[in-house]
């Protein structure tokens, strides 16, 4: 039914979509988490709690909300993004931003003493923030990886916004769902195993790189 070439193609597409989503999410989450870590203001804990609870939002609900935004009759319909990989990238990025921000904020917070030291040595606020960011880099990178793994393993957004179109928006998770609906349970498990292997390979390589 599914050729090895197709599996390779679907795997690469999964990596590409979730990888791009992770990069976009990181670009937004890094400044956001720095802001949350360094500034003290009323309601900060509330924001962190809201972000935390947003992690529980079912992926299909995020998919549905974006569906109404992106569909041809919706406010962003003119962009004509529904049923494209770009819609999936946007959806997955939004899905993982809360998760990434929380993990990054924790990583930064554990190194916060660096800021005081830097300032006492005469660094400006932005220099201190830069120092904190560099010191927390391993934690930041592992936060990005957590986000990537969440994105590559999710089904709801990919199915709702991408539509599981063969050769275009079919990724690992939607392919697995399709095989299950065809009664090909064994193939579904094999594809799931491949997905975990891909994730393991990427995660270990990037975290090794980060440790150096």
């Amino acid at each position, binding site marked *: *039914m599914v050729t090895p070439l197709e599996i390779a193609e679907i795997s*690469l*597409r999964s*990596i*590409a*979509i979730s*990888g*791009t989503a992770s990069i976009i999410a990181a670009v937004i989450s890094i400044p956001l988490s720095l802001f949350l870590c360094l500034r003290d203001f009323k309601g900060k804990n509330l924001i962190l709690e809201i972000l935390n609870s947003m992690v529980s939002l079912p992926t299909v609900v995020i998919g549905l909300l974006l*569906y*109404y935004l992106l*569909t*041809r*009759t*919706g406010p962003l*319909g003119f962009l004509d993004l*529904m*049923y494209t*990989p770009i819609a999936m990238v946007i959806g997955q990025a939004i899905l993982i931003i809360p998760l990434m921000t929380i993990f990054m904020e924790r990583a930064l917070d554990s190194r916060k003493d660096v800021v005081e030291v830097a300032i006492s040595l005469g660094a400006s606020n932005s220099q201190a923030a830069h120092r904190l960011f560099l010191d927390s880099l391993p934690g930041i990178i592992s936060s990005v990886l957590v986000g990537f793994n969440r994105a590559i393993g999710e089904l709801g957004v990919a199915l709702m916004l991408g*539509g*599981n*179109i*063969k050769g*275009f928006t079919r990724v690992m998770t939607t392919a697995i769902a*399709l095989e*299950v*609906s*065809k*009664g090909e349970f064994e193939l579904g498990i094999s594809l799931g195993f491949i997905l975990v292997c891909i994730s393991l*390979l*990427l995660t270990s*390589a*990037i975290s*090794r*790189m980060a440790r150096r």
Partner: protein
Amino acid sequence: MRKLFIGIVLAVLLASIALLYIISTEKRSLIVTTTTSLYATGLLDELKAKFESKNPGVMVKFIATGTGEALKRASQGGVDLVLVHAPSLEKEYAEKGVIEKNGSIFAYNYFILVGPSADPAGASGKSVIDAFKSIYSAGERGKVLFISRGDRSGTNVREMQIWRMAGLNPKNKSWYIESGSDMVTTLSIANEKQAYTLVDVGTWLFMKDKLGLRVIVDRGDELINIYSVYIVPSGNVRDASAFKEFILSKEGQETINSFKGGGLFFSAIWPVDNTKWLRETWEKWSKIKG
């Protein structure tokens, strides 16, 4: 060694991102929402391949869901053509103007009532309506279970119509279980619980060897499963019309009839023009509430 490993991983990452953005945009998209029962068999991929070889400028993209979701997605835009099998829902959406008024029937096959081989309801050999009545009364006596899709799919709509024709309402009965899942999952639940369920012949044929269930009733007008094609006027009408014409052409109809050696789907127009009685049957079902 480690550098090589990291290098390979980075190369894969970059290559895959590049792949994502080198998607050919020269081709026009034709988005078709359809039902899993058609897609999962592989019939649509065969029709797509033949159509695309004749129309190289078009890329047909299938989104396989239940009939309810297929029509709902069409109503939200972004869809050009629908292939569905629930006359009453089709009528509803045609009246709303979401899909064209006069769709075309392009294929048909049958639903089958399946159940445990012991047939504790004694439904085997009866007419469809009587079989459903037997299941209802055996269910009330606590002897059998019935699994319903419960998802507004074409199969689910037909099942609800048959209950209505039998003058029964099984909803909220303890023996009536709504799976809320696709056909394969529903069949698996029926298998685990040794329960009755309604299934389309396509899914049944590829699943039956994995199940300890048997055919209870497979004859009767109530079991005719009609597939229709509709253009979505708000979509890419030009290519949608071309694909629709292809499905209804002699070549398209031949492909449907001979798919997997035949017997899975029957063509509506060629070699025998069945449109008249199919349309009459369709009209009948479109008036019964699901």
